């Protein structure tokens, strides 16, 4: 019979389904538990006693008139069940009747196992005797108690039940989120205090449940309890009558759609306008007695206000940012035109001075030459020289500003990049400068990355250009470019043995127009690093450095990682259509 025991043990879920099927079919579910867990407990309790019985009895457990019941797992289970169910108010007919269907379920299980007829009969006989034993003990126990004892037992159980019920009713009423229960006709069965507060500015907790006029509560059997203050009656009213703003969720419920994740409703309720996140769920009832739908609301009014404020703020920021960009663009663009004039007419004035000087130089009037000569030959040309220098400087700054602002506005195209190839193009383009300045540049094999080709090209160009500009003239210049891949980033390093950057300046070098030594020999407007910085913002990268004054600098750039193969594919596709573009650093 060990096989029988294991058959029972293995098929708990099958048995639960089976007994539920019979219980529904025969109408026992009117009085039984709703949650599947309760049925599981029943089956597992019964199975445990059967398996224990199987283990104890080697042959079918027959019985006789003088048997002392209660000494084996089967009869003790029967007696325990009797005590438990009698207290609950279950009638003998009810219990025994359902037990017959439990027996049937286990019998049905036997037939699912394909064994020879002889074995089947053996098992069937054994199981029947087990159930008989259980029922025997049950009946003896049930009938054993006298009437008074039974009544006392029932009263205790009833008090306990009432307390349980009250506890859960209180939980229901105490929930801070409004909860509304609807029947299949979209009428309100029940609603908690938080829900009532939405339509009644002075709701009484539990008033709905305890309303004397309430028709028989379809949720729990028996008459409604008539105590407490009389509140408004909501039962039977259509939910949309009282909560018209729930129409969206009602549509979903009627169409049997699942509860949406972020369904929001705007509601005009007691106390003003509020926003709710709405969810609905069906009652978890395997006995299918309670076919209510439960609607829960979460008040997100303040949350929503905060969210709306934030969105508004972001929109404003974005708008202001666009305005700023266009101001920079327009300013730097429109300022060019008058500069052209200043620059050009200064040159013309300069030439006019020379012509003037030529004409007075041939004059005989020495006094004239002495008085006017220095003005025309030295003073005025010098002033003009400074004017020209100023305009050239302004043009340079405007060019830089235009370049910087363009980074934010130009269309960006992120793709896998073969950085070795990009570096090759840069070094080719700079070849003349490199030879001329006699700088040695070495590079390792670099990992691929994801980014905009032109912009990443500019980043590397600017870094190398800086390394060349800020070299230490007392020694041969070396620049080394290396790179490695980390989990999700590719890191690149441009290292030089130049003059380095003092620690106190290192934070500021990325600022616009910042120059290490504004009066020094190195040309430039100080925009190269801020351009790099902005490009990296747009390409999901970042830059940092290590530097020691007098020794040299290392600039590190991180960009999103990309597999080398992807970059190679991308290069092969692009060959032919893209030119080698490098942009001069400013």
């Amino acid at each position, binding site marked *: 019979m060990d096989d029988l025991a294991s058959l029972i043990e293995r098929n708990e879920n099958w048995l639960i389904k089976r007994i539920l099927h019979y219980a529904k079919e025969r109408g026992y579910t009117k009085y039984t538990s709703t949650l599947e867990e309760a049925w599981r407990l029943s089956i597992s309790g019964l199975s445990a006693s059967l398996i224990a019985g199987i283990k104890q009895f080697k042959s079918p457990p027959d019985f006789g008139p003088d048997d002392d019941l209660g000494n084996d797992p089967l009869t003790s289970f029967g007696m325990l069940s009797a005590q438990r169910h009698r207290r609950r108010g279950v009638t003998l007919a009810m219990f025994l009747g359902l037990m017959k269907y439990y027996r049937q379920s286990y019998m049905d299980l036997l037939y699912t196992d394909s064994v020879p007829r002889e074995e089947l009969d053996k098992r069937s006989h054994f199981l029947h005797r087990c159930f008989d034993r259980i029922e025997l003990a049950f009946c003896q126990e049930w009938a054993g108690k006298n009437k008074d004892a039974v009544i006392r037992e029932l009263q205790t159980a009833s008090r306990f039940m009432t307390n349980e019920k009250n506890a859960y009713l209180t939980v229901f009423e105490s929930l801070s989120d409004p909860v509304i229960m609807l029947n299949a006709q979209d009428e309100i069965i029940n609603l908690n205090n938080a829900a009532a507060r939405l339509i009644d500015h002075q709701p009484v907790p539990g008033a709905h449940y305890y309303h004397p006029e309430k028709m028989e509560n379809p949720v729990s059997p028996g008459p409604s309890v008539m105590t407490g203050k009389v509140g408004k009656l909501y039962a039977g009213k259509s939910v949309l009558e009282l909560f018209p703003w729930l129409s969206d969720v009602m549509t979903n419920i009627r169409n049997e759609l699942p509860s949406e994740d972020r369904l929001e409703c705007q509601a005009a309720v007691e106390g003003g306008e509020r926003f709710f996140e709405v969810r609905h769920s069906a009652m978890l009832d395997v006995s299918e007695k309670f076919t209510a739908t439960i609607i829960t609301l979460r008040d997100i009014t303040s949350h929503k206000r905060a969210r709306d404020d934030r969105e508004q703020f972001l929109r404003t920021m974005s708008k202001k940012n666009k305005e700023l960009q266009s101001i920079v663009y327009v300013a730097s*663009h429109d300022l*060019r*035109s*008058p*500069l*052209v*004039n200043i*620059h*050009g*007419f200064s*040159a*013309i004035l300069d*030439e006019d001075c020379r012509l003037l000087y030529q004409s007075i130089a041939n004059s005989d009037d020495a006094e004239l030459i002495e008085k006017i000569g220095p003005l025309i030959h030295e003073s005025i040309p010098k002033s003009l020289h400074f004017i020209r220098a100023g*305009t050239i400087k302004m*043009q340079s700054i405007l*060019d830089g500003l235009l370049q910087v602002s363009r980074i934010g506005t130009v269309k960006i195209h992120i793709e896998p990049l073969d950085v070795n190839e990009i570096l090759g193009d840069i070094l080719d383009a700079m070849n003349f400068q490199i030879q001329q300045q006699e700088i040695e540049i070495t590079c390792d094999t670099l990992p691929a990355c994801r980014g905009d080709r032109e912009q990443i090209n500019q980043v590397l160009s600017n870094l190398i250009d800086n390394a060349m500009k800020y070299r230490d003239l007392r020694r041969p210049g070396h620049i080394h470019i290396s790179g490695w891949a980390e989990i999700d980033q590719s890191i690149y390093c441009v290292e030089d043995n130049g003059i380095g950057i003092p620690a106190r300046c290192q934070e500021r070098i990325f600022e616009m127009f910042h120059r290490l030594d504004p009066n020094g020999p190195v040309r430039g407007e100080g925009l190269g690093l801020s351009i790099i910085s902005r490009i990296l913002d747009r390409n999901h990268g970042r830059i940092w450095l290590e530097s020691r004054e007098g020794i040299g600098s290392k600039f590190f750039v991180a960009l999103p990682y990309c597999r080398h193969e992807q970059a190679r594919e991308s290069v092969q596709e692009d060959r032919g259509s893209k030119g080698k*573009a490098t*942009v001069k650093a400013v």
Partner: protein
Amino acid sequence: MMKQMTILIAEDDDCHYQLAVRYLRRGGISNKIVRFNNGQDVLDYLDKQLSRDTDEVLPYILLLDIKMPRVSGIEILQRIRSDEKPVIKDMSVIILTSSDNPHDVKYCYNLGCNAYVLKSFEREELVDTVNWFLSRSAQEANCNSRQAV
């Protein structure tokens, strides 16, 4: 007698125009200069000149600013290069502009401009460029006149 090229200048900014003229004159260029402050006027002028039906049709060289009111310099260039008459289609066009955007440069060359000069230019830049086209046109005119004979 060799035909002298007329230099057309399409530039809406007065100061820029005055600057260009002074540079050209001081650089020794004495050809006739005609000024337009928008591109449409250039085309109208050319149509009028050509409809005069003379044998003496002057070759032209055009200094063209991109940013002009109503019709942009780009569009003028396109219409010139797609004209049927060779005098217009093949004329030398020098773009004068403050935009150094590489895309703009490439675009103009693709449309068929002959040169691209950035404002602000030095006097030599403008004069040398114009002289180059003047002399080329003179060579072509020489060949043509020899062939005619």
